[in-house]
């Protein structure tokens, strides 16, 4: 008989204080190291995306609901925040700019109540399709009511129009740095709140509904009610992310409720790892890196993001977080040394293959899209003539060599990897506790 283990409830233990304190400190200190304009923009968007992706993961990771229309809540929240901002500017609303995300969150939650009632009647694949339909409906409707949504151009506002924060005249959210700190405060607060939610009875029963809805119903829970509640809370946080978007960009358009946004947050949450709380945080950072930083360099960034995503789905469905934790486990058991050489081989050959692919894609892209600029393009700073066969042959050669070598090293790596995993699992089985 296994001994009964007593679990004490200590939500504010030392480890958590350290982790959250460290996170807050990191957010506070980052601008000291990255103070350039572009880095600040990037970090602001990462903060917003972290809130959005975590709110999405309340559905995907914690309640097992794959939504294709989550941008509806953040987008509508952003529209309400923008209208509130304009009211503040006009003097007809007395509300601090710093608390605008709260209005957006309530608006998001309100639509969560309405749409959630319809969507959460079903789980699984029908839920996915219905959210897609609702998302398309809201997007189509947003172009239909230009009075509220501003038509194609969207609506704009001015975040500095409100009264300054704490009465200090320089704190008007004009500079990007102040906006960053506002986002950081909201981001940390939302992260803590969403983490706390995973430990409430509702958060736990949501996990049960995800894993086995039938049993959850047997012990007396209405699974539809649980899904609905989770969706409402999730859309509240999504609304907050939308409100932060409105403050950050000072413009909200129909694009904010579009399927592109909904797909983006799905990619972000899944890339990071939906089965871990911190996964979407990683995913949000990577996603913003792709969509903001990489898009500065290449028009094909969505293609790269798609390939990256499909590769993860195929080989590591737990996302980046699971990759990280698996490697940490290998390190903890002191077996990483055996993986070092296979890793070097796999990574180097993968990089070579990727280089060849990128060259081919960029060359083709240049031919189809930038023909007006002449046949010569610059790849990694090197001029290449797309009219001559040379660059094409080189690209194909690099890709072929990389792919062949990669396949060889991949097999070797997979062998070592599964060997080590089996050893670790054997050890865990033989040494319980």
């Amino acid at each position: 008989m296994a001994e009964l283990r007593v679990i004490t409830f200590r939500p504010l233990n030392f480890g958590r204080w350290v982790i959250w304190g460290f996170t807050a400190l990191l957010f506070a200190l980052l601008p000291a190291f990255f103070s350039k304009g572009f880095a600040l923009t990037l970090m602001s968007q990462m903060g917003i995306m972290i809130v959005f992706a975590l709110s999405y993961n309340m559905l995907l990771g914690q309640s097992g609901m794959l939504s294709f229309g989550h941008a509806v809540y953040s987008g509508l929240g952003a529209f309400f925040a923008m209208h509130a901002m304009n009211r503040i500017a006009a003097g007809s609303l007395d509300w601090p700019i710093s608390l605008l995300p709260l209005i957006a969150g309530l608006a998001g939650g309100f639509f969560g109540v309405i749409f959630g009632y319809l969507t959460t009647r079903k789980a699984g694949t029908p839920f996915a399709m219905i959210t897609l339909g609702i998302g398309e409906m809201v997007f189509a409707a947003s172009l239909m009511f230009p009075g509220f949504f501003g038509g194609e151009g969207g609506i704009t506002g001015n975040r500095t129009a409100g009264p300054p924060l704490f009465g200090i005249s320089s704190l008007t959210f004009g500079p990007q740095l102040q906006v960053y700190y506002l986002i950081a405060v909201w981001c940390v607060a939302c992260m803590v709140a969403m983490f706390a939610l995973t430990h409430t009875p509702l958060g736990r029963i949501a996990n049960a509904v995800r894993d086995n809805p039938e049993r959850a119903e047997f012990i007396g829970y209405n699974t539809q009610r649980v899904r609905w509640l989770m969706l409402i809370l999730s859309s509240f946080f999504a609304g907050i992310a939308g409100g932060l978007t409105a403050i950050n960009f000072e413009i909200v358009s129909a694009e904010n409720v579009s399927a592109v946004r909904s797909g983006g947050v799905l990619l972000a949450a899944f890339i990071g790892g939906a089965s871990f709380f911190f996964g979407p945080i990683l995913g949000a950072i990577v996603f913003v890196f792709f969509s903001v930083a990489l898009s500065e360099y290449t028009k094909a960034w969505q293609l790269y993001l798609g390939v990256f995503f499909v590769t993860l789905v195929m080989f590591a469905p737990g996302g980046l977080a699971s990759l990280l934790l698996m490697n940490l486990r290998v390190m903890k058991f002191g077996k990483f040394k055996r993986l070092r050489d296979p890793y070097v081989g796999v990574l180097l050959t993968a990089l070579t293959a990727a280089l060849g692919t990128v060259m081919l894609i960029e060359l083709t892209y240049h031919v189809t899209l930038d023909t007006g600029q002449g046949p010569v393009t610059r790849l990694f700073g090197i001029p290449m003539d797309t009219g001559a066969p040379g660059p094409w042959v080189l690209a194909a050669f690099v890709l072929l060599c990389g792919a062949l070598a990669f396949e060889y090293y991949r097999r070797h790596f997979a062998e070592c990897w599964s060997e080590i995993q089996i050893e670790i699992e054997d050890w865990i089985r033989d040494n319980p506790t």
Partner: protein
Amino acid sequence: MLEATLSQALYGVSYGLLLFMLAAGLTLIFSMMGVLNFAHASFYMLGAYIAYQFSTWFGFWIALGAAPLMLFILGVLVERWGLRRVHKWGHVPELLFTFGLSYIIVELAQVIWGRAAVPYRVPSELDGPVAWLQALGITFPQYRMFMMAVAVGMLVAIWLLLTRTRIGLVIQAALTHPQQVEALGHNVPRVFMLVFGGGSALAGLAGVVGGNAFVTEPAMAGTVGAIVFVVIVVGGMGSLAGAFIAALLIGLLESFGKVSDLSVVKLLASLGMPLAPDSTLYPVLTLTLSQVAPVLPYLVLVLILIVRPKGLLGTRED
């Protein structure tokens, strides 16, 4: 008036049949493998692009056969080397795999054919209105008629294949009892692979005939994709007959909605209750049916979910 209505009905039916061509492949794949293929609309788009390419090289009639064949091969490859690998992780990663694939396909099409629409035209043999309908006072393009013929031909072919051939019986049995079919010595994974390829080929065929009836551009996957999902939810997940009815319904709704200038305000006025332009809901109620046409399919979806969550002819609870 009657002629105009008939012509609208024909437009609606032909659009509905095109939607059914897409929904049929999607439903077959879904009911067999439990996979909602998000890349289905991308296959449709790819079918149109490949047909365009082939029609510039060899003419339309070769393209009509070649594009579905290419899509069949692509579908088989995707199933064999992609989906089957992901299958062991469960349904959500399978769905996400096809979702990622749809991203990649649309992007690749842009790399190859550019971001603007390509000039994929109706073949000259089928250009112009149908003569005998013209004589009755109804203007209806020959090509739309051809589209309907292809869709109906495909419908009959699927029906014959599923009910009258040996492989069809195996497919039907594998829909509900895959383990037992496997125990009887049939290669069920191969059947899955063929069904996925076949479904992709149907999407490709829809692309060939739909691409030049509408516009061949990268956005065509997105515009039709969501509607097809509406069709299969409204029809009932996994029901071919339901998908057929829902596709016709949505098609007719689209074609009649687009030309109607009916609005709540007008309706009230005709009932003797004119609404003042300064009342609160006036901007909403003055919208005509043609203005709200884009949301109509989704409104149908919402209504069906409230009234009959299973869908029209659905049997599955979830």
